[in-house]
């Protein structure tokens, strides 16, 4: 067997689809993940355009519609899920609350991922004191109660969206830091990194050109999962009253506000809770799919269209 002929089986022919199309095809192969992606797309659209279109409707109080029951199809569509304690249409409020909920989670995930990854790369590459000190930092953050941090920030600064992002971002840094560090420790021993050293590559070049692209898929997969976690954490904080404060609104806060009316109007808490659970479920499904799609050794499962979900 001569090595001069390209391995035909593993060569991509010139007419092969581009990477994006290939990704979409792999997504299509996993039906639950496709549904999840579509649902998330809907949530993102709500978050972006919801406040613009429905803000006036969502904040208009209507005493006759107080705690109106759901599924009354004679009402305008925004009332189909019923009204809240002030008669505001629940569906419209859920759509507009998506904006804050998503903004907080996105901000917190991006910030913690950037900082955590940077620290993790430094900790993984540095053999010196820095490499020892950074993981300690992660330990401290991990054992610092996030509730206390939230309260501190709330007292020192005001409970704005930006500050909630700050609290959540700090608490999630260790996740990325540890993952990035562990991955760097493994990847740095690989032969292609050694080859780069032999060529005389500088440290930034090795870290950003050779190591980061290899560990990025793992980090993105974790970030998707973490997005769900951050949403849950934000809603828990808001539920406890140390997160977002009215008149701002998030799904978690809506659940808390509806709690006194549970026996009379269960929908007030139920629908925003359902929105949370569906969004986090979608994120989990998508993360599961990404774990396979971004792993060259597992990708075939999606490309054969046979067994799903590995």
């Amino acid at each position: 067997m001569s090595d001069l002929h390209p391995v035909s089986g593993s060569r991509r022919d010139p007419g092969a689809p581009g990477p994006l199309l290939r990704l979409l095809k792999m997504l299509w192969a996993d039906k639950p993940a496709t549904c999840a992606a579509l649902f998330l797309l809907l949530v993102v659209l709500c978050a972006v355009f919801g406040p613009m279109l429905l803000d006036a409707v969502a904040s208009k109080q209507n005493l006759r519609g107080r705690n109106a029951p759901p599924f009354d199809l004679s009402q305008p569509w925004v009332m189909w899920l019923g009204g809240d304690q002030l008669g505001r249409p629940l569906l419209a409020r859920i759509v507009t609350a998506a904006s804050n909920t998503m903004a907080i989670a996105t901000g917190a995930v991006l910030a913690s991922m950037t900082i955590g990854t940077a620290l993790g790369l430094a900790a993984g590459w540095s053999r010196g004191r820095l490499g020892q000190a950074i993981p300690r930092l992660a330990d401290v953050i991990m054992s610092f109660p996030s509730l206390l941090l939230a309260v501190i920030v709330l007292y020192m600064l005001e409970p704005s969206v930006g500050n909630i992002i700050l609290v959540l971002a700090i608490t999630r840094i260790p996740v990325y830091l540890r993952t990035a560090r562990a991955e760097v420790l493994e990847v740095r021993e690989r032969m292609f990194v050694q080859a780069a050293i032999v060529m005389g590559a500088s440290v930034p070049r090795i870290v950003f050109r050779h190591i980061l692209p290899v560990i990025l898929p793992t980090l993105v997969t974790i970030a998707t999962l973490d997005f769900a976690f951050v949403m849950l954490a934000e809603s828990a904080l808001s539920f406890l009253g140390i997160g977002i404060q009215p008149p701002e609104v998030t799904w978690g806060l809506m659940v808390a506000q509806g709690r006194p009316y549970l026996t009379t109007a269960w929908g007030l808490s139920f629908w925003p809770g359902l929105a949370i659970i569906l969004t986090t479920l979608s994120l989990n499904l998508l993360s599961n799919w990404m774990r396979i799609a971004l792993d060259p050794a597992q990708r075939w499962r999606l490309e054969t269209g046979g067994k799903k979900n590995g």
Partner: protein
Amino acid sequence: MADPLLEIRDLSVTFDTARGPVHAVKHVSWSVGPGEVLAILGESGSGKSVSSSAVLDLIDMPPGRIDSGEILFEGRNILEMSKAERRRLNGRRIAMIFQDPLSHLNPVWTVGWQVEETMVLHGTPRAEAKAETLRLLAKVGIPDPAAAAEKYPHQFSGGQRQRLMIAMALALKPDVLIADEPTTALDVTVQAQILGLLEELQKETGMALVIITHDLGVVAEIAQRVVVMSKGEIVEAGSAAEVYRNPQHPYTRRLIAAAPGKGEIRAEAEPPAPVLSLQNVSKKYGAFTALHGISYQLGEGETLAIVGESGSGKSTTARLLLRLEEASGGRALYRGRDLFAMPPKELHAMRRDIQMVFQDPTQSLNPRMTVFQLISEGWAIHPGIVEKSRWKARVAELLREVGLSEEHMHRHPHQFSGGQRQRIAIARALALEPRIIVCDEAVSALDVQVQAQVIELLARLRASHGLSYIFIAHDLPVVRDFADRVLVMQGGRIVEQGSVQQIFEAPREAYTRALLAASLDPDPEVQARRRAARKREAGAAPPSAASAPAPSHRSAPASPAARPARCGRRNPAAAPPHPPAPPPPAHRRGRRPGTRSPAAPCRPRRGSAPRSPRSRPSATAPAASA
């Protein structure tokens, strides 16, 4: 030949993969009778181990499926048996041992328990199994069986682990033993011992033995009959001697021709002026000394081969030279400057001059970069070699030079075969226009034929670029017709150095002779003569001597810092001091200068990677299990 015990008729196995169905084996038939040794010979991807996996029901279905054929054991088609019925055959009537025993032994159970389990699974009471286990361990040459049974697989050396696998497989005296590349990741001296043990046990129990291998030398050493496979088909079958002497199929002919160590030895020239000179270089990892102050020189345009078994320190010298690790002592003078004491700036400039080609191109090429990026990266790091506007043209030039073509430039490494990848790695090294290239086991992960082609390329580049090579290898035949000088290392010391001619034809040291003797020749007749010679020499010893542990294993590293099988993992810090390999009886009689060397290709360090299609389904998924 008696009635076949195990017979495969017209077997076809297909795996469904991302790129459509892959026909791993097509209409394959072979059989083996009691007391017979059959070898299935093939290169990677030939499908050589698929049929035996089918015998033991080890093929995952899906993605695999059996399209045609039957497997007859004692005349019954086992493909028609129930799962439970087949399980009763496995381990009791038909047993199997694998390549890379470290990953095939369960890391979390004691080895005694694992040997017992074979018997307990088939109904032997636990207490009886325990006693039998100790007897078996002693039989396969494990010292102090009672203590060994309580240990875990990582506490044994590679050769001992294979002995443990053998004990496990033979516990119930199976009628057929299938051995899948049983010696591939082992040092040559250990390989000889394991093959000896298998042969002895086979003679004693009269079982049928099926050996799956890529190595003509193994066939020559042990097999009576051989089946040659290529691309899922049997291309040739017959007695081992007949197939070697008179190959019918072009594939077999090419395979035999590619066996290294048979060409002309390079003429001895006047020693050239040294470019690089190591003086008393040592390296310690904690209490363990990997290099005991070695000194050698590399001449201008010279090829220096460094040969040694695992733990000999041969790769450590390369890593020190390239400053991948810091030396504990000594100097390395390059153009009068000490490499080990260079300030960063000078070191950076020096990197251009000394480049390296690594063992496994799959790992040494960044999977996310294109060939163009891989080759041109050095020019971004060292501005001034090639102007940016000429990068494309120069990459194309380099690709042509290493035997690839220009259009390969925009592909990624995974789109190439192993040999092509190594060519890319060589082009990358050449891009910096170095004066010295260090090849660390650069061909040992490649198939024999590809190995020969890559060595040919290296030889051509040596002539056209005036390069000097440090060529590190673990067995001697590979370097015989390529190197100028050879340096034999053992346990961190240089045992012997000299010209190729002197090392191969008049080795002075016992260890060098042992290494040469342990290498297997592809010619069954040569092997037969050498076996006879070995027996004569061992004649005085009691018959069980062959199965007794070799000295190297008596002092097994019981260190908890497990040393992984020698498959390219480089973690010298975790390596326990490697006991000196034994000089087996020197018996290099009757060797005339100029005849072919009694050594044969041995190509260890191939996949210790997971091989089932489920865990490693990429590229050539199922074929990888071959």
